[in-house]
């Protein structure tokens, strides 16, 4: 029999779903078997099906989802030993949902994707540089140094149309050119503008609802390192920093392993790939938890060990960044694109896209959808396709209400705009932003006023406090929204929200403040009725806002089973066995546990 490889996904989401006991059992079962190799891989983005186990044999791949220890035994007994596929757990064949797909859906999740950033995720062992190299790894860097000039590399990136994937969408090639043209210290023969410059990877993925950077760093750290080395060579930088959130311990671990391996192979360090004039090394700087540090100047302050507060620009980081040295900052996803562009050429990259947005974008799909996880789609695909085809549609077949794009800086896009193509300009036109690619889908059971309040609460807490409009204005907006969700709002509140929003946008120094009102503005624009229902009718149409809803037992249908009484955490339900129960509205905390535990569905919420 041919040699077989069994892969197990061990990124954070896999582990959270219980992949570690499966991995331990896999090692125990296959110990001493020479014909099977175990490979610990990262995340292929099908988080909704974790833990994932793959069988690679005769050049084909079968991927199994929701694998527990019992299923693993079956995979080994049936597939490995008898070559019979375990159909009821199979989700992908050869990376796509083929004829053997499990759920019979007509909307393939993988076929619609174009995987550039995620090209290796879930396929290679992130702790093994040889597997990265075997899949064209470090070929882009080699090509840049051996076959191209520095200007040609920058031109290639410019021609590709690659724009910053962190949210702002600034052309990456232009950023590099500014950094290359900036005067720095320590010039050499090939870099008359100096080499005492910094290349930074912004891995401070603070946007709640986005997790693609975590996944790339955990599953394919070398793609980011190679991207940074290519950028450093083109710009003439000798220092590299990856600023990574401390909340991502596995990403930091994998990065440090990858950095050591890259140094050992001569892709980092002195005289890289034999170029006398190119020395570059990278270290990982752990963030300490502050959303505003995603902003470039705040990130620089944090790397310097100060409070992470933004400062006015100019001077731009390209001229005066870390320790006042020329500094170029790109985010994780942007860097991971770079090696692919160098290897395949700007034309191949440019072939995907829509308008001025070229290439792909990775989205973190979450919320009320069937298939949560990561998906990389070509720019220009409609939001409808992403939500209904790639993400599988709405969970429990409820009605779609809105999709939140761009996190706290973004906005909610309603049903009527679902045909909007995914590109920077089209999404901006809706009032939302592309942002870092968080996509949280909401159904009819989600209250948009509550979501707006949620985001205001977030930015109000994360405001660094430097600009009064942001510091105080977001607080006032939050207070208004809290009043509305408690049923104490007045109709003038809506005008006040809009007026405050304009002042905060105009009076804030950095992106956090300038975009903080977006979630409120977009929900007011598209869902004004819901605000009015909270204020005038004192009702929450989605039945989320606790002070506006009431639980009641239908006495005629209640069988007196006492399950609700037992489930209630605050003792709000009374009644004798086999007689109708009642809920004390004063005591009730609206947790919904009674309703969930009622066997005859006699508890209503109004």
């Amino acid at each position, binding site marked *: 029999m041919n040699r077989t490889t069994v892969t197990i996904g061990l990124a954070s989401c896999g582990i959270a779903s219980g992949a570690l006991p499966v991995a331990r059992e896999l090692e125990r079962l296959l110990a001493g078997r020479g014909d099977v190799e175990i490979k610990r891989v990262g995340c292929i983005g099908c988080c909704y099906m974790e833990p994932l186990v793959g069988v690679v044999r005769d050049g084909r791949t079968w991927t199994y989802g929701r694998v527990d220890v019992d299923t693993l035994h079956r995979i080994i007994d049936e597939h490995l030993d008898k070559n019979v596929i375990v159909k009821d757990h199979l989700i992908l064949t050869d990376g796509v949902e083929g004829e053997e797909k499990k759920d019979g859906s007509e909307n393939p999740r993988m076929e619609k994707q174009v995987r550039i950033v995620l090209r290796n995720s879930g396929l290679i062992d992130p702790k093994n540089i040889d597997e990265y190299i075997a899949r064209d790894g470090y070929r882009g860097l080699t090509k840049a140094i051996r076959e191209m000039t520095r200007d040609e590399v920058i031109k290639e990136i410019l021609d590709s149309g690659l724009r910053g994937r962190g949210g702002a969408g600034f052309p990456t090639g232009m950023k590099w050119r500014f950094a290359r043209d900036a005067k720095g210290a320590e010039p050499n023969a090939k870099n008359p503008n100096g080499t005492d410059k910094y290349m930074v990877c912004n891995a401070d993925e603070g946007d709640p609802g986005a*997790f693609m950077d975590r996944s790339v760093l955990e599953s394919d750290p070398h793609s980011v390192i190679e991207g940074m080395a290519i950028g450093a060579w083109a710009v003439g930088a000798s220092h590299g920093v990856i600023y990574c959130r401390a909340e991502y311990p596995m990403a930091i671990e994998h990065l440090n392993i990858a950095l050591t391996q890259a140094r050992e192979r001569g892709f980092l360090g002195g005289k890289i790939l034999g170029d006398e004039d190119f020395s570059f090394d990278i270290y990982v700087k752990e963030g300490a938890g502050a959303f505003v540090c995603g902003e470039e100047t705040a990130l620089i302050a944090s790397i310097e060990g100060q409070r992470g507060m933004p400062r006015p620009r100019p001077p731009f980081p390209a001229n005066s960044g870390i320790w006042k040295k020329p500094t170029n900052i790109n985010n994780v996803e942007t860097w991971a694109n770079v090696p692919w562009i160098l290897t395949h050429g700007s034309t191949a990259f440019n072939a995907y896209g829509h308008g001025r947005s070229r290439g792909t974008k990775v989205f973190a799909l979450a919320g009320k959808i069937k298939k949560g996880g990561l998906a990389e789609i070509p720019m220009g695909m409609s939001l409808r396709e992403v939500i209904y085809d790639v993400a599988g549609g709405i969970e429990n077949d409820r009605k779609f209400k809105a999709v939140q794009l761009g996190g706290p800086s973004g906005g909610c896009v309603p049903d009527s705009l679902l045909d909007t193509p995914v590109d920077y300009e089209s999404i901006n036109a809706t009032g939302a932003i592309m942002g870092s690619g968080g996509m949280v889908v909401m159904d009819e059971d989600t209250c948009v006023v509550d979501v707006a309040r949620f985001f205001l609460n977030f930015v109000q807490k994360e405001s660094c406090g430097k600009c009064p409009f942001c510091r105080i204005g977001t607080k006032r907006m939050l207070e208004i929204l809290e009043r509305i969700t408690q049923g104490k709002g007045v109709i003038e509140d809506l005008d006040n929200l809009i007026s405050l929003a304009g002042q905060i946008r105009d009076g804030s120094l950095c992106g956090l403040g300038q975009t903080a009102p977006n979630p409120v503005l977009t929900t007011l624009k598209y869902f004004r009725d819901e605000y009015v229902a909270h204020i005038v009718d004192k009702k929450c149409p989605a039945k989320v806002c606790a002070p506006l809803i009431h639980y009641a037992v239908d006495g005629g249908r209640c069988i007196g089973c006492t399950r609700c009484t037992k489930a209630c955490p605050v003792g709000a339900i009374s009644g004798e066995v086999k007689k109708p129960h009642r809920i004390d509205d004063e005591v009730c905390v609206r947790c919904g546990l009674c309703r969930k535990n009622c066997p005859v569905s006699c508890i209503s919420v109004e």
Partner: protein
Amino acid sequence: MTAAVDEVIPNMKSRLDPIVEKHRGKRGIAIPLLADVQKEVGYVAREAVEYVGEKLSISPAELFGVATFYAMFRFQPQGKYVVRLCRGTACHVQGSARVLDQLERSLGVHDGETTKDLMFTLQCVACLGCCSLAPVMMVNDEVHGRLTPEKAVQVLQRGVAP
């Protein structure tokens, strides 16, 4: 100063001196220095900050200015189990507020507080990046996904069971 430190935390001087030496003479050290102190002491203790600040000629005000800015730093001792409940967007939409209510009720503490027996610290965090498994919480380094209010409490009960 030294005596005060030793009074609050035993052997503090011998535990903090290696940290001081590790960072001496480098620039931009405030965050890693404070992180090391927190790791050693369990929290950012005022006496410890004053001690290392004096040794490295950094004013306590500057160090506390940095420490209070970032979510990572704590100023009280923590429980044996640190429960980090994700309050990110996806978790919010999937009902993490109700999980929080239930945890607060069952532990008898609010966000940011520690139970009297020093067993549990409850902490809300912005996003753990496991949005597809929402709602999510981390108990020490272990992530638990697809929570319900009941399941969250069961996880903690399992944690303390012998």
